[in-house]
Structure formats: C-alpha cells, structure tokens
C-alpha cells in the first residue's frame, strides 16, 4: 500500500554504466538535495534546472562525487510529487554510496515500481499507460516501443470498449426480457442475444490470438542456429551481425559454448543463439557442447537449420533432422552460388526454405524477411496500428471473460435468463478490469510489483 513518505532508488540499470541516477520522490526531496549536494554556483536548487556541483557526506564533510542534480517541484514531475535526481558517475560503488547518503536522511528505499505506482495513484497516468511505461522502459526494439506507444494511445482500450459494447447490448436484451414480462416484447429473442455475445466472443478470441504476437513484439524472439560444422553457421551469423550493428549483449563463452547476440530484423528484436557444430565426435568437451545445442532446440521460438547445399545430405544432417522434430524451423541452404548437390528428404516439414550465400550476402534480406513473417502475421507492418495483447494480466482477464462467455453459451439451452445475465456481468467485469475500471487493490499490487525499480 502506498504511503505518502519520501522514497529513493537507483533508477539506472545495475552494473557499471556511464552515469548512475538516484531518484528521490516525496516531500523531503528538496531537503535531501540541500543537505548532500553543493552546487558550484551558489543559489541552491532551482526547480527544473540542472546544476553542477559535488555530492558530499554532511557528517564528515567529505566529497563523494562530482554530479549534476535536478529538482522538480510537484506537480510537474514524474510522480507528481517533489522529485530530486542526482546524476553521478556510474561506478556501482559510487552509486551505492550516494544512495546510502540519501537513505541516511530518513528516506525509505522505494519498492519495485513504486515511482510509477505513485504517478498512477496521483492521477498522472492511467493503468494501461502505467503498464505501457513499463514496456517502453523494457523495450528492446522499435516494434516493442511502437506497440507500447500504441497501447498508451488507447488502441487496445478502444477495442476493449467495443467488446464491452457488445456485451452490454446482450445484457440489456436479457434484462429487458426479465424486467418487462407484461410489455409485449414478444418471445425472448435468444438469437439476437447470442449474436451480440458472439461478436464479443469473436473480438475476445481474436485479441487472445494476438497474445503470442504481442509477446513477440514486446519481448522479441529467440532464433537458434544449428548446422554441421562447415555448413556456414558462423559466416551466416557474421553476415547477420555485420548488417545489424545493434549488438546489445554479447556473452562470450568458449568456442564450444553457445554464443548469444541480440539484433533487430525489420523492427523485431531477435536473440540469435549460435551453437556448436553438430557432428559425431569423441571429444568429450565437444560432445557436451553439441548436446547443449540440441537441448536448446525445443526452447527456441525458431530454428535456422543451416545446410551446405553444395554437398549431399549427410549423417550429420540427419542428426539435425531428428533433433528438429516438432520445432518451427526454416531450412537455410547455404552456398547457393556453388553447384547444388543437396536433396533434402522432407522439405515440407520446414516452415520455409531459403537459399543464401553467406559469404556474398546473397539471400540474407530474404531470410530476415522470412523470419519476421513467421511471427508478424498482421497485414500492416506498422505495429503502431496493431491492436495486440502483450501483457499476461490482460490475457488473464480476457481468458476469464471467455470462460464467463463459455458458461453463457452452455447456459443458452436452459434459457435461464437470470443466470445468463450473471455470466454476462461476470464477463463485463473481467473485460473492464483490463482498462482499469474494475480492478482491485490486489491486482494493482501485482502490477506494480512487476515494475523494475527506479521506473
């Protein structure tokens, strides 16, 4: 529960970065600023102005770091409360030390998501916006950002309102037959009621069907590259990376381990996992690497199976084939510029087959496009116009609505209007909880505890 005291937290990601930001929100923000920050130009902190100076320990008088500080007076701040931000050098030790200084002034460490929770509670943003902010922060790609922004602009809310409209219409009909038995309304028009419910059901299940895509837009996909040692995995990887310098993480490992790179294809965030070459070997370390690679296959959203098209189908290729059972896979036939000897035994089991020449770059664009097509089914490539579900809470609410509607459909035979009304109301309430109309404190607590600290 939100209490109106002053809170603080580090709002940059953990680890050593260029700068570290400590954010303070609440009535005591200015007091803290004045107590531990000394601006170069005397005159104290002016609201919404950056000032340069030093952070010092008021008990010892010792200087802790050079820093920039900005004070934002309520209500013109992120939380609508008084906010102080201290931008210091990013070394983790320094950041920790500054935070400790702030906390020593009687200020509480913020709970996860508490800043945004306050912004929400103080009426600055609504529930969907609050969630979108979280997505914007977590955005790993253009598409995720666009999705978050479109949700912030209310595209999803609008669709939810449509669902509500149909349900309300059905409910109104049911209620009319209940409350006006003597008014000559004619026999209960179950068909009209269920037609309206079916419209709502259609929208709900269409929305639910977008959840997978929404999740992908938000979180991106993982693509595993497998192939025998000389099929051209590494050159494919290099080719993909060269053209996309947006390397976010690079977890180095031994050559036998899995290499992970994150890049974007047409706005979609793609985590590429390169694995050890698959082959028969007696080398224990290499065996370990291979079995890890094979173990990863079922976990990936998509597998790129790289084959050397200039050679005949081999035992190693068969091993890969076996491991791919049931996985979404694109067959990548490398070395398309050489003589083609490969005949894939069962080409239909792949989602697609793409011919490339990794060294020259031939077919790479087509491959990227093909990858995206596997996930972005919507007709428009601009995710700003998409209405998709991307949050588990929304999905859960709609699943619950769907259950109520299912119960409604099952009850149609009995034609017990008062029970049908109950199901419709249940569905309405569930649907309403997406836009924040009928949400409870418990739900809010859950939402805000999933916010990452500092934002």
């Amino acid at each position, binding site marked *: 529960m*939100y*209490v*109106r005291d002053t809170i603080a937290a580090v709002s940059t990601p953990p680890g050593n970065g260029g700068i570290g930001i400590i954010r303070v929100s609440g009535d005591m923000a200015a007091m803290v600023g004045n107590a531990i920050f000394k601006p170069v130009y005397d005159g104290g902190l002016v609201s919404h102005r950056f000032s340069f100076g030093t952070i010092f320990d008021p008990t010892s008088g010792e200087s802790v770091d050079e820093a920039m500080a900005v004070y934002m007076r309520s209500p013109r701040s992120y939380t609508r409360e008084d906010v102080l931000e201290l931008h210091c050098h990013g070394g983790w030790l320094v950041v920790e030390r500054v935070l400790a200084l702030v906390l020593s002034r009687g200020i509480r460490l913020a709970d996860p998501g508490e800043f945004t929770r306050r912004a929400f509670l103080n*009426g600055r943003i*609504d529930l969907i916006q609050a969630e979108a902010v979280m997505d914007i922060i977590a955005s790993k790609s253009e598409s995720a950002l666009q999705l978050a922004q479109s949700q912030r602009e209310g595209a999803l809310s609008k669709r939810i309102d449509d669902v509500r409209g149909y349900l309300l219409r059905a409910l109104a009909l049911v209620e009319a037959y209940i409350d*006006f*038995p003597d008014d000559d309304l004619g026999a209960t028009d179950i068909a009209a009621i269920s037609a309206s419910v079916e419209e709502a059901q259609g929208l709900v299940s269409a929305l639910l069907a977008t959840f997978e895509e929404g999740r992908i837009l938000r979180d991106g996909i993982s693509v595993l590259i497998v192939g025998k040692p000389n099929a051209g995995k590494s050159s494919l990887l290099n080719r993909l990376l060269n053209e996309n310098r947006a390397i976010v993480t690079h977890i180095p490992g031994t050559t036998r381990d899995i290499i992970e790179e994150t890049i974007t294809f047409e706005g979609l965030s793609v985590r590429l996992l390169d694995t050890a070459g698959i082959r028969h070997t007696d080398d224990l370390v290499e065996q370990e690497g291979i079995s890890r690679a094979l173990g990863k296959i079922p976990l990936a959203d998509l597998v790129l199976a790289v084959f050397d098209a200039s050679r005949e189908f081999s035992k190693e290729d068969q091993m890969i084939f076996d491991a791919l059972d049931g996985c979404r896979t694109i067959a990548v036939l490398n070395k398309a510029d050489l003589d083609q000897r490969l005949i894939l035994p069962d080409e239909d089991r792949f989602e697609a087959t793409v011919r490339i020449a990794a060294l020259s770059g031939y077919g790479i664009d087509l491959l990227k496009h093909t990858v995206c097509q596997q996930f972005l089914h919507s007709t428009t490539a601009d995710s700003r116009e998409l209405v998709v579900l991307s949050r588990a809470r929304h999905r859960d609410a709609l699943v619950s609505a769907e259950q109520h509607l299912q119960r409604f459909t099952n009850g149609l035979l009995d034609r017990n*209007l008062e029970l049908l*009304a109950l199901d419709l109301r249940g569905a309405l309430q569930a649907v309403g909880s997406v836009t924040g*109309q009928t949400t409870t404190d418990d739900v809010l607590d859950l939402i805000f505890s999933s916010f990452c600290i500092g934002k």
Partner: protein
Amino acid sequence: MISYDQIYDVIVVGAGHAGCEAALAASRMGCRTMLLTINLDAIALMSCNPSIGGLAKGHLVKEIDALGGEMAKNIDATGIQFRILNTKKGPAVRASRAQADKQLYRLRMKRVLEQQKNLDLKQGEVTSLYFESGELRGVELQSGIRFLSKTVVVTTGTFMRGLIHIGLNHYPGGRAGDQPSIGLSDQLRVLGFHVGRLKTGTPARLDARSIDFTKLETQFGDDPPMPFSLSTERITMPQLPCHIAYTNPHSHDIIRSGLDRSPLYSGIIEGVGPRYCPSIEDKVVRFPDKDRHQTFIEPEGLDTIEVYPSGMSTSLPIDIQIAFYRSIVGLEQVEIMRPAYAIEYDYVDPIQLHTSLETKGVKNLYHAGQINGTSGYEEAAGQGLVAGINAALRVKGQEPLVLGRSQAYIGVMIDDLVTLGTKEPYRMFTSRAEYRLLLREDNADLRLREIGYGLGLVTEPEYAIFTEKQRMISEELERIATTRLVHSEMQLDVLASRGLGDVQKGTTLEHLLKRSDVNYSDLAELDTVSRETPAAIREQVEIQTKYKGYIDRQLEQIEQSKKLETTRIPLELNYDSVKSLTTEVREKLSKNRPDTLGQASRIPGVTPAAISILSIAIKSSSWKDTSDRCTQ
C-alpha cells in the same frame, strides 16, 4: 402562528404511500408521531394505476412486509386479482402483482392509521419547516398553526408546485382533484437544496359500461391467488379479470394529428418524464414502425364502473383523447370519466441525502418517496418505511438503519438515489441489483425479518412463525444432504418412470435435487419424509440447493466488496486537500459527498485509481494536513 402545546417525536408530512409507512413505523417503534396531510379522504390514494407489485416492485413489497411494514397486508386485504409474473423464469425474477380496489385500499390504510397507538392523524397543508436558532423544530401550516417535533419526514409526492397539463391547458394541482403544495419547495430551495422539476402522466379513466369486452382478450389472475404478506393466510376478496386491447395504425394517426397541441412536444413541459413509462404519444413518436401498442384494461374496484387503460397515458387535448381511445377495437363507444393528464412537480435531488434518508443539509429532516425523484407506490413505501424507522432511531439516540445492496432492493434503491441522484423519475428494476440471485421475493423474510423484529416492527407471534420456518429449512437441508437413496423397489420404480435410471444407489437427495431434471416433488415420491414438507420449506430447500453454485459466487463477490462498502469517508473530508485526485473526480466527490468508499466507487467517472487514493487518504488522515505541510 399559534404553537400547538405538544412536542412530537416525529412529524410526517403527507399521507401518501411513503408517509403512511413512515408514520406507522415511527409510532410502532414507540415514538409520538403525527401524520399531516392535505386531504384526509385521499390517504394512500393510488394516483395512477390501481395495482401493486410487478417486477422488482413486488420484491420491494415483500421486503416492506418482512421488515414489518403495512403495504403487503393492505393489498392482500383489498386486492381483486393476484398474479405471479415470470413463473417460467428463475426464482429470483419471479414477482407478485395485484390489482387493487382503489377505494378499499385507501380506506383500509386510513383505518389502520386511525387505530395505531401513538399516532395522530391531522388534515392540513404544511407551508414551511420551522427552525429555532438554526435547528429544525417542527412545521407550520397554511391554517396558521405550528406543530413542534424533534424530527420531520417530508413525503409530499407529486404535490410541490404541482402543475397539471391537459393539452395546452394547465392549472395547479397535486394530482387530479387535489390542491398542490405551495411554499414548501421554495423554502427548501432557500435552505440550499437543489430542487428540480420532473414530469409524469396518467391515462384517462374509462366507463366500463361503454366498452365491448367481448372484443377483448380476457386475462384472469392466478388461482388460488397468492398473498404478498407473510401474515396473510389466504386472499378472501372476490377476484376480477383484466382485459387486453391494442391500438392500431389509425390510433397512431390520431395521436400524430394532435402533437402540435401536446404540451410535451410544444415545449411547455420542462420537467423530465420517465423513459420506462412513456406516454402513448412518446411511444408513437419514438417507435414509428410499431403498428400496435398493448393495453391492459384494469378494473379500479369491485363497486365501480371506472377502468384504467394501462400504458395509455397522455397529455394530449381532450378531443384527441376521445378520438384516440375510441379508435381502439372494443372501445368504439367509450366514455371518458376522468381525462388523462400529465403533471409536473418539484423534487429534491436525493444526492443531498445520507443513506439513512436524512438530508445532509438539515439535521433531523428526512425525505422519502416521490419527493426524491422516484416514481411508484412501492418505491415510495420502501423509502417511507426506512425514513420513519430512522427518524424514530434518531429520537431514541440510536444508529440509523442502512440496508446494504446485498441485503435488499430497498438498500439498492436508496444507495442508487443518494449516490447517483435522479435526473429522471427513478423506478426499481431487478437489473439494478448486482446480487439479484440473492434478493428474491421468496427469501425476503430470511433476509429481513430479524431486522424488523429487532426494531420492534415485527410482533412476537409473527417472529415465532419465522424462527420456526428457519429451523425447518435448515433441518430439511441437513436431512437431504445425509439421506441416501437405498434403491428400494419403490425408488427404482419412481426413478425409472422419471427417466432417472442412471442415478446410483447411495446418491444423496441433495445431489439428486441439484439435477436440472429433478425437483422437490420428485423427492417427495422417493421418500416418505419429503412428502410431509410444507410448501414454503420445499421452495426454499429447492432453490437453495439448485442454485447453490451461483448463490455462492454472489456471496463471494459480496465478501470481496465488503472492504469498500464498510469503509466510511469522514464527513469533514475536504476533497480539495486530496491533491492527487483529478479535478474532475474532486468535483464529483465534493458534489455527491458519498458516505462510504463503496458509494464513491459507484459514482460514474470515479476511477479505481481515485478510490485507491481516497482509501489511502482516509487511512493516513493525510487529508487533514497535506495542504499546509512544510516542504522546506
């Protein structure tokens, strides 16, 4: 002004359906009570339709009865046709309705009032409330007398600045044949109340001798007629049928030809009318494609030739009225005995009331009935009962009775009124109740009898009957949960003949009763004890067993909302000091001043976020000092 030398505990202004219940409740609770009304010959008069009950309204009447009110007993004693509506639908939406002998209804209520201990009945028009040093102390009458009291319940119905319209003619009146009440609403306005204007209408009363009933469909009541009141053993009044007639395209042409002289369509009437009870011209204009509208021709009593054509209210001029009614098949020769008319009247927005029905602006003043913007006898009576009870409780220095939305339709109605206010006449519907499955006619006593008894409105013998019923229900529920089928020859025969051959040996009767193809009468064939169960107990056991799943779901919802419903918002809360609320929400809350968070959450535009903020503000009491906190 001459001051009368007695100080009453409770003065009730107006002896309509609200006023009668209020006065009876207060006097039965031992308070010195006076009931003042403009015309003692028009007590509990049915201004409009000669009937009581219907969907949600029947529920209200049964609740009034369970709490110890009079309406149910009065209609049982004077009803001339009884019907249960929606018998083919579920138990929660079944409702009782009865035609009344209008004059007998009024006369019996007058007799009950006259015989009531602690109650004085007087004729007179109240022109103002009387205050001493800012406190309400009584009322003043047109005749120049002042009556003193500790509390006042105002139930003036359609009378305050009543204006009757027939075509383009209009004249002051509280209803046809009665004087309006002038002065009182002006004073209320001066006192700071928001006083608005509403409108309603009534059809003509027709001469039955001029109607050819052979051309109409006949509709009889139920046989035997089922009474409303728990205290009525059986209906003894003679029973009469109603008749059904229809308008036709020609009728509609006549209506259209008179619209230019309709006070409604020519803009003379400013008050807002009820959308759910439109006049015939409204129906014709709004639904031009409908080529007929139905009317029930209802008798106004046993000894009168006057009949009431329901749904045919109008404010069109008299020549159009005559032509229109005569265009209906069977009514070709009809004579109008009293013309149809519309009436505009002042009401006081109930948003200015607490859930006790006491006004927020004036302490010890209560409003009930049509003055609160409701319409209907049952709605009025329900409020009157609560206002009378709460005035009496105030006199006794006790906490007010507030019925919850999960407890009674009366609770739903009052909560709606005081939370949302009224902008058009408010009528009860079952759809207004979110816990509809729990608020049934059949369990009104289980919900409310205890409360009525606690207040002293339910007599010892009545209460004894109730506790006995309760005991029998729980025993029977227990018994069917533990009695198992033994598959005796007799049981196997019955099961087979019912197509229940699949029922296993050892199945409990409860389990069996849960099946949609089994009802209690089947149980009665399967085991001898069930045969002996009285009808009222059977009904409860059957409903409670069959609907258990749904009932439990609703109970769970009630539990979830309890926290909000029971969190009180301090009276002195200054919403402007709760900075985190948006301006819009702040304005709404300042205007409505809800008593609880639950109420606040039902005000449109008050978001869940706002409720969270409010609940925090209340808990931390930070609203007291946020405005002048030091920021350094």
